[in-house]
């Protein structure tokens, strides 16, 4: 047996025999009460609880550990170790899963067992259970490695097992819970009939708006919005990409800034700015009323408002995708067309556009999915135009509190986004668009035909100016009394939110926003490195290792990209509110949520960078006696710096700006900035909300600087000045 396998066995033993098995709420090992319930009470270890008969189902876990102990005592390395380790890990895990899910905080989860064995209950997993489960998983991995999996590389097998285990637990299991609770009534009894009633409800699929002036079903609303936004962002994004690459447009730097800014803007802030401009008492509305007597209306609330906000928020994503696509079209193809006497317009229509088609489809699907998943904008601007994400939210937190309805709506939403994701994966994933090669393509890009150019300018420039106005509003809005009514400069909003008072006992953070800001920064700072680690580790496995089922593994890890935040939020409440994993209301659940929502970007960035690093570097390191782990640390990681920066920045920024998932998961103790801001918007305190948003943007800019300083540049020497540059990982 290898040393690390032995260490994991020992950890398993400690987890089972010494650490408190269950989660002990409100008690710390420093308190006397804790010691009173150790080792036989609530804070007891698995060994004592299991064999004292108190929690007898913990007993059998001992068996595989005993076998492990026997192996440890015997020592040495033998060929049959692999088989034993595999058995120990698998048996331990299987039993822990069975025992964990068979009993919850109330009773047996299967009624029949309650009759047979009498009532039992248990709390959520604590340190002991967690350590033991992890140890079993790692022992299993070491066993498989000893049997020749992945070229006998224990690190690789362990990494695969770990990533797979985590993804199954924190992506798949919650989604499965949604499916389960969709066919249950609100008391947890199996009731498939209810599913059909709720699924085919008129409020979901009704088509009343087609033939009467009643409202259509929420599913159609969502779908319609998503299609329109998908088309709109793709067209605008293409216009921008063409301007940036195919015209002699001067202010390209401005274009870049306008594409970066929305990434660090919490999504609903745009909606907020729209309200401040066009709401009933908005700045523009006020001007129109005073100058032209246009009556103040609430036109911005509803489809129009949400559409405009989403266009503003998601066009940059389409732009980032399409700029790569337009760049990838080899100019020599267009030149070839022109030498065949095609006019510029014909060339564009018959050569350039068809080559862009996969890219356009990709951009459309991204816009489509983003629109479906968006929660903040419909929440602040939706008015009577309901979409699935907000409807799900109100099903959970609203007066009705109908969890199974939330589950059913989640399934509808999930079907749409997964369908789009699957289409993209199957249909576009394998098709490589012409990529930029290292070889200089000496051709010159053909300038756009005049008509196209004017069309692009005509759509893009007003849009860019509009975006600029929005950001001016965000900047200025926090410093005036009330946008639209009273432009007296004031610091009042900042003082309310971020006031600091000098008291006799030192500084006192009196502002109402401090708590949520600190929590947000802390959670983001914890989540970002973990996200980057999991993402890059997955990327390493996908880019550098061969194993059975790799394609499915890839699909699974990218899947969380396609799950809308609202659905994640609902599924986390359903899955992690009860044993065996009971973590709702903690900071941990926020961190975990962010890790698995944002990890796909780390994966993509990692794969992109790693595929540019010669594989024989790893192999050279291996043949020099370095293990995979050392190789990763000393060779791959230093060369991966750009991807590290990209995934850290993205993870941090997304953790600070996310709203849809965490709005379900925040608690009084762990409130997040975005949830707080949404609350202020709902209360009509726009000034504070906008001030807080500006602060968030500044914090994120600072964080990006810090990350870049900490991670540093990679040093490759002067001849490789043209080292591979990481594509902006915006998607």
């Amino acid at each position, binding site marked *: 047996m290898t040393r690390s396998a032995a260490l994991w066995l020992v950890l398993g033993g400690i987890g089972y025999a010494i650490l408190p098995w269950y989660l002990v709420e409100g008690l710390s090992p420093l308190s006397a009460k804790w010691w009173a319930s150790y080792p036989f009470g609530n804070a007891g270890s698995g060994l004592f609880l299991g064999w004292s008969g108190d929690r007898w189902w913990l007993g059998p876990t001992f068996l595989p550990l005993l076998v492990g102990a026997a192996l440890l005592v015997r020592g040495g390395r033998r060929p049959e170790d692999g088989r034993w380790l595999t058995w120990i890990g698998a048996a331990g895990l299987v039993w822990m899963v069975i025992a964990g899910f068979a009993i919850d905080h109330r009773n047996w989860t299967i009624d029949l067992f309650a009759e047979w064995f009498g009532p039992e209950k248990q709390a959520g997993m604590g340190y002991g259970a967690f350590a033991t489960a992890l140890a079993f998983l790692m022992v299993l991995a070491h066993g498989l490695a000893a049997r*020749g999996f992945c*070229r*006998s*590389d224990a690190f690789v097998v362990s990494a695969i097992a770990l990533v797979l285990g985590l993804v199954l637990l924190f992506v798949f299991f919650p989604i499965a819970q949604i499916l389960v609770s969709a066919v249950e009534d609100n008391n947890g009894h199996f009731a498939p009939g209810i599913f059909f009633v709720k699924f085919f409800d008129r409020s979901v699929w009704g088509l009343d708006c087609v033939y009467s002036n009643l409202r259509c079903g929420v599913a159609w609303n969502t779908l319609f919005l998503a299609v329109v936004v998908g088309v709109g962002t793709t067209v605008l994004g293409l216009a921008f990409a063409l301007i940036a690459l195919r015209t002699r447009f001067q202010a390209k730097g401005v274009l870049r800034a306008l594409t970066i800014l929305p990434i660090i803007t919490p999504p609903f802030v745009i909606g907020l700015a729209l309200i401040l401009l066009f709401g009933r008492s908005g700045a523009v509305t006020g001007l129109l009323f005073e100058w032209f007597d246009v009556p103040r209306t609430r036109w911005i609330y509803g489809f129009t408002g949400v559409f405009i906000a989403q266009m503003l928020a998601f066009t940059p994503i389409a732009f980032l995708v399409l700029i790569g696509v337009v760049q990838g079209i080899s100019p020599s193809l267009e030149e070839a067309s022109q030498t065949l006497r095609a006019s510029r317009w014909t060339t564009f229509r018959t050569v350039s556009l068809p080559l862009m088609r996969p890219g356009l489809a990709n951009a459309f699907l991204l816009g489509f999915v983003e629109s479906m998943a968006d929660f903040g904008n419909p929440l602040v601007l939706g008015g009577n135009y309901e979409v699935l994400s907000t409807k799900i939210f109100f099903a959970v937190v609203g007066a009705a509190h109908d969890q199974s309805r939330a589950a059913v709506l989640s399934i509808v939403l999930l079907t749409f986004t997964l369908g789009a994701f699957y289409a993209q994966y199957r249909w576009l994933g394998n098709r490589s668009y012409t990529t930029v090669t290292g070889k200089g393509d000496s051709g010159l890009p053909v300038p756009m035909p005049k008509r196209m150019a004017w069309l692009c300018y005509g759509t893009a420039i007003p849009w860019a100016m509009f975006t600029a106005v929005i950001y001016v509003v965000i900047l200025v809005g926090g410093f005036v009394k009330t946008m639209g009514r009273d432009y007296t400069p004031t610091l009042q909003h900042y003082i309310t939110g971020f006031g600091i008072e000098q008291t006799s006992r030192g500084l006192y953070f009196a502002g109402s926003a401090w708590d949520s800001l600190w929590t947000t920064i802390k959670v983001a700072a914890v989540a970002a490195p973990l996200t980057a680690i999991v993402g890059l580790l997955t990327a390493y496995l996908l880019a550098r290792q061969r194993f059975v089922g790799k394609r499915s593994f890839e699909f699974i890890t990218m899947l969380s990209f396609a799950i809308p935040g609202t659905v994640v939020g609902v599924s986390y409440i359903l899955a992690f509110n009860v044993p065996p994993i009971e973590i709702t209301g903690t900071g941990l659940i926020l961190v975990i949520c962010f890790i698995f929502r944002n990890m796909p970007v780390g994966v993509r960035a990692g794969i992109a960078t790693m595929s540019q690093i*010669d594989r*024989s*570097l790893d*192999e*050279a*390191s*291996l*043949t*020099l*006696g*370095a*293990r*995979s782990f*050392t190789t990763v640390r*000393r*060779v791959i990681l*230093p*060369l991966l710096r750009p991807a590290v920066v990209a995934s850290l920045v993205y993870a941090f920024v997304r953790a600070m700006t996310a709203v849809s998932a965490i709005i379900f998961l925040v608690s009084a103790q762990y409130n997040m900035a975005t949830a707080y801001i949404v609350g202020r918007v709902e209360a009509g305190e726009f000034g504070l909300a906008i001030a807080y948003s500006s602060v968030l943007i500044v914090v994120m800019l600072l964080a990006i600087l810090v990350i870049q300083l900490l991670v540093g540049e*990679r*040093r*490759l*020497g*002067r*001849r*490789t000045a043209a080292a591979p540059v990481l594509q902006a990982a915006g998607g």
Partner: protein
Amino acid sequence: MTKPAAAVEFRSVTKRYGPVTAVNAVSFVIDPGTLVTLLGPSGCGKTTTLRLIAGLELASEGQILIGQRDVTKLSAADRDVSMVFQSYALFPHMTVAENVAYGPSVSGTPKAEAQAMAAEKLALVGLSGLEKRLPSELSGGQQQRVAVARALVLEPQVLLFDEPLSNLDAKLRRRVRDDIRELQQKLNLTVAYVTHDQEEALAVSDRIIVMSNAAIAQTGRPRDLYEAPNSVFVADFIGDANLLAAELLTRQGDLGRIRLGGLEITLPHRNVSTGAIRLAVRPESVLLDQRSPPGAIEGRITKAAYLGTHMEYTVASPVGDLFSIDHRTGAPYAVGTTVWITLAAHGAVVVPNA
């Protein structure tokens, strides 16, 4: 070198990638302290064989032994084998010294000692003074030597080279190949060397393993392969050969009488049964003459090329088109000239398994 060199043994090793069999039931032994070349056309499984020795791939079937020890299931890091890669695979973010010291330093050798080991090996390959440079600041030949120094630093039992010279120009290639051979002999290393350049293989090897289609076609000393190829493939692959249809008339002891067109010659029959056989004739053994010696075959020059040291002719004859090399460049035959063909005493061989 403190450790004795180790033998490498393959026992019926197979490597499959899904449906592709890259190495098929291959067995061979590389004796300690020898340089063995794996030679063969592209895609025949040379690199795969080398990677199997290194532990970068694990065998699907069979057994691999290094120095009597079964290493079949050991990963690369656990085998005492180093490799020089075709692309050199120098770590671009480390200096030359850091690159060479990488092996000892990851295995826990104190820094100063690791650096001393690196300096020693850099001196051995003649690169002292360049320690502080990054790989990107070296010439191709220098990078190659850094890669060799890095592979040598752990004094491995076995050293592997995968086409180490393919990135160098022809002149440099000849020099570096001699350096590698000298180093191997000086340090008494066991070396497996992959190339598809047969001249390189003949020049440096103690033995050559010729591979074809994932299997071994023949192994032997360079001279054996050249002078006694045991298949048409090997005869054709090692050096140039005219492969001619002939007839074995009678066998007497080890020798046989063979008729080739109008010529009758005596050659070792190599256990081929009488009847139609294949004869491999090296181009320098095809002698051309304008007078007609007894029993010569008549031919006509169809192509002639001047290559400085020799002439190359293609001669049409009743036994087929012959390729011939003639070192008399003074008065070459013109195209269309009628010539008489005989065979030299050496350089023609019966090919079994034709």
